[in-house]
């Protein structure tokens, strides 16, 4: 009797994956108004360029065109989410901020980036992007609204544009060009001097960026004050930003193996031995994110102080409810995982599935996905393309980084052992597994 039921269960799952799921997924990553958006960006670039000194107009438009093209390419490559669940919800919160501040909706575009990175960002053209990864730690709509206010603040204060123009003015200045000329005249040690000049410049820019972040926070708080959202929980955003690692971490890899009764010889899930190092690593580019410039603790204090002096009462939900947000957060987790799969990062996808499975044990179909991913990894291993789908170049965040542990485990497995694990997983979960032919 039980067996019959399970067969029906599998049958429904099969129907869901083969017919229903693709139908619902179809089109959710396609931006329908891409041509309109392209013209908007071009028009915006022309308008901004004309306001500048002729000397730097071409350079400015080249930079912006490059950014525009990259953004359009990312849209075409389905890096953004335009679904019928998360997008309308978040877009509605975004629009609420705009209308509460009497801002023209036509000047803005709102996108959801499918990545797990805990971040949001904006461009000089009024495009505001929220990463799916940001949703994980959001407790209510008020917090999301504050993040959007911060990004809108950057746009209204024209931070991106001002930075670009200021850099271009500097690079075209007589003083800077003379410095370069002098360095190039010298015979020895010229690269070092040029590099030092560039580093000083990057440092100055980063200091400037800290100021911009502070200003965007200040304007953001004013914009937020005009909405009907309450500010009580808003400073807590910074606690989340401070602690967020990006990856969910609810089950350790060892617990997963224990649950599946999989034993692996010669593999220790203990923290990896101390990494070798050699002096200083190559300087990385400075990346602006919500969590940087200035640090989160200071920003939290500033926000608490502002709303202490200017109390902002209001509600935490306008567009939906706590339950709606929880659904969206859950949905976001699945979408982030799917994004990893779409981008061909199968090691990360497997990790995300293991975590999602632990979070939602009732959702038995996840086991099917895990099994199918294990078989896919087996195929890649066999054809020596494993390195294409599993990221080996990854620096663990800390000794407890479970994604690093999974990568280490995958790296240690022979083809035979991977096959054994896949078969064990199938034996343990075969009642829930539907084999997807790829």
């Amino acid at each position, binding site marked *: 009797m039980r067996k019959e039921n399970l067969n029906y269960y599998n049958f429904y799952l099969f129907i869901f994956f083969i017919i229903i799921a693709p139908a619902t997924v179809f089109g959710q990553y396609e931006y329908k108004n891409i041509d309109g958006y392209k013209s908007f960006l071009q028009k915006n670039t022309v308008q901004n360029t004309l306001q500048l000194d002729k000397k730097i107009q071409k*350079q400015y438009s*080249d*930079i912006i065109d*490059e950014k525009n093209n990259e953004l359009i390419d990312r849209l075409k490559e389905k890096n953004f989410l335009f679904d019928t669940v998360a997008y309308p919800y978040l877009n509605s919160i975004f629009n609420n901020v705009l209308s509460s501040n009497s801002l023209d909706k036509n000047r803005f575009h709102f996108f959801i980036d499918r990545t797990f990175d805990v971040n949001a960002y904006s461009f000089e053209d009024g495009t505001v992007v929220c990463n799916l990864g940001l949703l994980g730690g959001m407790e209510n709509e008020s917090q999301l609204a504050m993040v959007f206010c911060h990004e809108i603040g950057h746009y209204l204060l024209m931070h991106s544009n001002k930075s670009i123009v200021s*850099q*271009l003015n500097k*690079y*075209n200045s007589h003083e*800077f*060009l003379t410095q*370069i*000329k002098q*360095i*190039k005249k010298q*015979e*020895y*040690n*010229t*690269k*070092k001097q*040029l*590099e030092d000049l*560039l580093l000083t410049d990057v440092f100055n820019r980063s200091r400037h960026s800290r100021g911009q972040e502070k200003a965007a926070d200040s304007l953001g708080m004013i914009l937020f004050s005009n909405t009907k959202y309450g500010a009580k929980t808003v400073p807590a955003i910074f606690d989340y930003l401070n602690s967020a690692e990006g990856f969910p971490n609810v089950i350790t890899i060892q617990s997963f193996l224990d649950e599946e009764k999989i034993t692996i010889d*010669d593999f220790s899930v203990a923290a990896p031995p101390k*990494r*070798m*190092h*050699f*002096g*200083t*690593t*190559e300087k990385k580019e400075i990346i602006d994110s919500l969590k940087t410039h200035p640090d989160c603790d200071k920003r939290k204090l500033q926000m608490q102080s502002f709303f202490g002096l200017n109390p902002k009462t209001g509600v935490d939900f306008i567009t939906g409810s706590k339950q709606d947000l929880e659904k969206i957060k859950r949905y976001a987790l699945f979408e982030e995982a799917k994004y990893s799969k779409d981008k061909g990062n199968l090691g990360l996808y497997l990790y995300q599935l293991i975590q999602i499975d632990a979070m939602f044990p009732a959702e038995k179909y996840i086991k099917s996905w895990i099994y199918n991913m294990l078989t896919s990894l087996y195929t890649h*291993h*066999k054809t*020596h393309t*494993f*390195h*294409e789908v599993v990221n*080996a*170049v*990854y*620096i663990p965040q800390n000794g407890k980084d479970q994604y690093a542990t999974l990568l280490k485990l995958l*790296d*240690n497995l*022979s*083809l*035979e052992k991977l096959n054994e694990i896949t078969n064990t997983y199938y034996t343990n979960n075969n009642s829930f597994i539907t084999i997807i032919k790829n």
Partner: protein
Amino acid sequence: MKFKLLLIIFLAISATQGFAQNAAKAFSDVKNVTVRNVGIIKKNNIVKGYFTFYEYDKADKKNLIYKLNLVDENLNDLGTKEITGPKDWELVSSGFDGNNFCFKFYDDKKRTFELKVYNQDGIEVASNPLKINYKPSSNSKYEMYQQMTNPELNIVENNGFVDYTFNDPNNAFIISYVNGDTKNTWQQTYQPEGKSKIMLPAFLNGNDEVILTAVARIEKGMYNTKTQHTVLASSVKTGAQLFEVSTEIDDNHVVPINAIFENGNIMVIGLNYKSTKTFTSPPDGMAFLVFDKNGKLVKSNFKTFEETLGKFLPMEDHKLKDGYYLYMHDIVRTRKNTNLVIAEKFKKAVDAGGVALSLFSNKAGPIKLQLENMVVMEYDLDGNLLQAKEIPKAKGSTGVFPSYTGFLTPYLLATVADIFGWMDYMYTIKSDENGDITFSFVDYDRLDAGAKKTENFGQIKYHDGKITVDKIPVKNEKATFSRLMRASTNHVLQVNYFKKEKKLTMDMIKLNN
């Protein structure tokens, strides 16, 4: 053929910043570098990472500013160090002793080798320069010696680095030692009495007390082919000779391959010959010698291949069937306390009679060795063969030897072929915990029944008694050219160049075994 591991790449990374043309050009120049050397950082047979040594800037009239970038075995960046040095500098090899990095530089103009040790903060903590009295590239004899001596640094676990350099190649060599932790450095010349025709040092092992070197020597004399083999023990603190002991025991002539420190004693594992002509005749079996810490022989054990191998491989008239020989490439100790031998089956492609006739007719006879399967043998500590496995590979051949070498013994030809890198065995790698031991080789065969013959990289893996094999094509199908570099066990690093895209990729390919 072995692959050239040294890869000279010219990197031209252009900046794509869109600012003022002058500034853009100046800054893109900053990123133009010429890579001088790329290599592996090893801790004995364990790959710990890779180095890239590149020219960065002119320091003054005589010197350049170089950058030395290190990545770990997974290609994660470890750091970059700026070093000023002479224009003619080459980074020959590198190593990691568990605490510090050592780099062996050669300055062709000053004829100086220098071992420089850096700690993990990238600070130079010790150095040992050595000026040699000849120019290695000036004379074919010196070049030959360069090839015969392993250029790689030898690592004493957590206790520094050892290097061997010839001064007068026939009669003396110098042992150089450097330790980053104790800052201890020394050089000792080894010069036995009497002139030598050939003298070759090989690092066996070392600990915090002693460095063991195998010395092979042939005394001067036109027709002399008799070899003498000794184990030389030097104090790790001063370089002083602690003892030198011959490995000739009764009628057994042992060529030491490996040494292990065990219970206060030294166990030397080697190949045993019943003749003194160890360069020209095939070995008769394995030898296991135990010496105490003063060099006194405590125990010896000799096993012939005939009595052990015969159970596993077809033998005939005291040799492998059909005139085959086994060339022993390496012997390593497993964590199961067994000894693992990697060998390659070969035979002479043309028989001596044929060659002789071709000499009389004034025609050069093509003399080469036919290379066949790899053979892995596992011995217990008493020299009993536990298993032997032939790993099939396509028949290949070495480069062509001059016709007058036709009368030389096949084993001598194999020794020469090995020195020239003509044999298919490539290298031995171990994992950190010594759980996996892998032997790599080249194979020219079809990977699948319907596929074309390709140049393939093969890996034999030993794990707790189990021997498995995997192969991949050397060349990435889409790349203009590909090169393979050794990597941690279970992996091989494929460097691909794509001419059209002007792109260089490095793929850490995971093998199936």
